[in-house]
């Protein structure tokens, strides 16, 4: 692979990974803010309603900062298709332009306008309108996720198009939006975002309980967070994770073999828990495995055949098999641990001992970063598993980059470093602002915290 393609890949990896850290929480929090607002609205004019409303208001402050960073780091992605992946844009714009333009038209307008109302309008619109705008922000952010996943699903499993004049041309929008790949990838992804939202909620609550501050608020956060974490961790494994793995098994055999570390094709394939893939020796080393489990999980049959990498030409292997393998195992391993943590916390909540169990609160407080790692590792699996294809089985990644004459490797390195520096600064700023918001806590009634909110009080 030539240098400029590698640089383009690295730049997109950096910008998309950094960006996605924020939408994970945006989508996850949007769900829980909508829930808190719904409880608050239904119990309005009671003490309970007020507590939930105050909790929603605190999370809205964090949401505002998170959303702002998500927006500004998201804009580069849409334009990078053109700057760094011009050949791909030219080839695929006629198909995925549909879903990307739909995201702008249907999701972003609603999301941006109603977020403006939600953040600014607490004292300007009725309680009902404020609640509705929270629901719109939730719907907008999840709809935005849908269109992005629909775009990615086409790259993973292209449908509804013909190739004519060297370009992909749409022949059915219906097929594009009902791609087999889409529903389970979407469900799996959104459930992953909800897990982060839930664990962040629980961690904040645990932090305040352990620091002996804001008890009322902290209990709402822990309760809602733990119950949400249990529900979505369970959904993450089954059915969404299970069905998504089947999609990969059926449509991307090379990616599936790399994820599971399967080299020789076998009947009754084992499920590898631990092991190191060696692409030179074409086998997995130092393994601990559950015999026959992989065959059972893919086809509900203990002796069915699983195709291994050794039966797939190497030019169709993912560019880095170990990367796919480790990313996948990190995701699955963390997902399992998080499910256990959520289940244990939910058990203690049920027994009424959670708020006083310091060990469990500590665990909840430090668990949330691992949800981010699991989400990112999942995407790393999907995207590196798709290699060497940009559009699976249709266009190779190397063929999709901008011509080297327009964007040579040196130019790409310059802007890659520029993005790295800018994003380092943005990341530090983000953490600093979040620490301030958390230090002030939910009972702070100091001046509003966003320009949007400032405008509200100005009128």
């Amino acid at each position, binding site marked *: 692979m030539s240098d400029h393609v590698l640089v383009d890949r690295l730049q997109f990896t950096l910008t998309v990974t950094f960006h996605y850290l924020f939408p994970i929480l945006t989508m996850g929090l949007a769900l829980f803010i909508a829930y808190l607002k719904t409880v608050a609205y239904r119990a309005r004019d009671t003490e309970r309603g007020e507590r939930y409303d105050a909790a929603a208001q605190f999370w809205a402050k964090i949401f*505002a*900062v998170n959303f*702002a960073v998500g927006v*500004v*780091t998201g*804009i*580069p992605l*849409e*334009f990078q*298709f*053109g*700057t760094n992946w*011009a050949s791909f*844009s*030219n*080839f695929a*714009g*006629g*198909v995925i*332009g549909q879903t*990307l*333009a739909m995201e*702008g*038209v*249907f999701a972003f*307008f*609603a999301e*941006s*306008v109603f977020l*403006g*109302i939600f953040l*600014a309008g607490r*004292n300007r619109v009725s309680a009902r309108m404020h609640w509705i705008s929270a629901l719109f922000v939730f719907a907008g952010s999840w709809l935005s996720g849908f269109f992005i996943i629909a775009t990615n699903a086409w790259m993973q499993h292209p449908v509804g198009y013909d190739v004519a004049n060297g*370009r992909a041309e*749409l*022949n*059915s*929008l219906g097929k594009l939006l009902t791609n087999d790949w889409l529903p389970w990838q979407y469900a799996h992804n959104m459930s992953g975002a909800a897990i982060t939202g839930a664990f962040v909620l629980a961690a904040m609550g645990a932090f305040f309980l352990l620091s002996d501050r804001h008890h009322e608020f902290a209990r709402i956060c822990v309760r809602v967070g733990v119950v949400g974490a249990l529900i979505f961790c369970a959904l993450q494994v089954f059915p969404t994770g299970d069905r998504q793995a089947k999609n990969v098994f059926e449509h991307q055999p090379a990616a599936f073999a790399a994820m599971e570390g399967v080299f020789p094709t076998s009947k009754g394939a084992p499920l590898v828990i631990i092991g190191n893939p060696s692409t030179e020796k074409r086998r997995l080393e130092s393994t601990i495995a559950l015999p026959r489990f992989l065959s059972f999980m893919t086809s509900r049959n203990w002796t069915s055949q699983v195709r291994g990498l050794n039966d797939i030409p190497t030019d169709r292997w993912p560019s880095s098999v170990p990367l796919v393998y480790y990313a996948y195992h990190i995701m699955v391993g963390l997902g399992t641990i998080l499910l256990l943590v959520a289940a244990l916390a939910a058990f203690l909540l049920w027994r009424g001992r959670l708020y006083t169990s310091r060990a469990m609160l500590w665990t909840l407080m430090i668990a949330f970063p691992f949800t981010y790692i699991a989400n990112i590792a999942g995407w790393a699996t999907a995207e590196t598993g798709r290699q060497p294809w940009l559009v699976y089985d249709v266009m190779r990644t190397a063929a999709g980059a*901008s*011509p080297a*004459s*327009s*964007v040579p490797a040196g*130019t790409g390195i310059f802007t890659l470093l520029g993005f790295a520096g*800018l994003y380092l600064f*943005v990341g530090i700023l983000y953490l600093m*602002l979040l620490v*301030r*918001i958390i230090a002030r806590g939910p009972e702070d009634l100091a*001046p*509003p*915290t*966003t*320009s*949007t909110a*400032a*405008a509200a*009080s*100005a*009128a």
Partner: protein
Amino acid sequence: MTTAWFCFLAAMITVYVVLDGFDLGVGALHLLVARDEEEREAATAAIGPVWNGNEVWLIASGGVLFLAFPKAYAAAFSGLYFGLIIVLWLLVGRGLALELRHQIANPLWRSACDAVFALSSGTLALVFGVALGNVVRGVPLGPDGYFHLTFFQSLNWYALLIGVFGLVALCAHGAGFLALRGGGGLAARARGWAPRLTLAEALLFAALIGPTVVVRKAMVTNLVDHPWRLVFPVLTVGALAAAIVGQRRGDWGRAFAGSALFLVGLLTTMAAGLYPYLLPAHQHRPYGLTVDSAASGHHALTTALVWWPVGMVLAAAYFTFAYRMFFRTATVRSTSAAMDQPPSA
């Protein structure tokens, strides 16, 4: 069909320039117009709730360009690589400066945010102008449908002139917005700036007609050959006159509407003068991208014609609702004054 999508794209870019134009103008000007922290607060608060929505028009325009004319999208963005990446960095800086300025009540922090906001807004207005200037001038497209302009090649004399014009025009638009929406001393000073900026804008506009004919004669012949297209330049001149008259009479609402229509006129004139080209090549080169040669497949365009208008109607409804809500009150008072009062229900 391709012509319809050309019109939609032009319309969306026009809406973007009119809406985000005043945000950018306010940004570029506010250090000059607003004298103290309170006024700067009022200036940024005036655009606070709407700037993000306004910027979505840029994203949505990019989406429609990608959807309908992927070849032009690919060629323009890779060919103007550095310019585009700089725009992205500036958009990151501007968005964060605006959204995060209120997070910390420290004068140094706010001054730093204001400086970033002003510099990035002004530079963006300039760079957008430079980009449009290069489109009008034509780019060195090759037979493969791509081109490469180094950053300094993209800063040619014509594009720079258009860039300066863009900066002045958006500053005038922003000053008009503050004259209408600002309060107290802020509005008074904006009312002093607006006529001067509008005059500069009018002079530059007149001065740029000649150079435009030199770099792209077709801009004029295209309009004259299809006389109905002369509506657009007539609108431009008429709107400019209306803006000046509005300012003279102290009718700032009408002056701002005139300024908005002037921008509409400029962009539609440009679109009408370029058509059927989306991305023309340098004069006398044959590889320019037209609405037909850059378009997506027929099915993609007809399908999108079904859902796109629905989305636009929804967007228009959201925007009308939000603007009515935020701009219902007569003027925006300074924030600190408002904070001493209990929030109104």
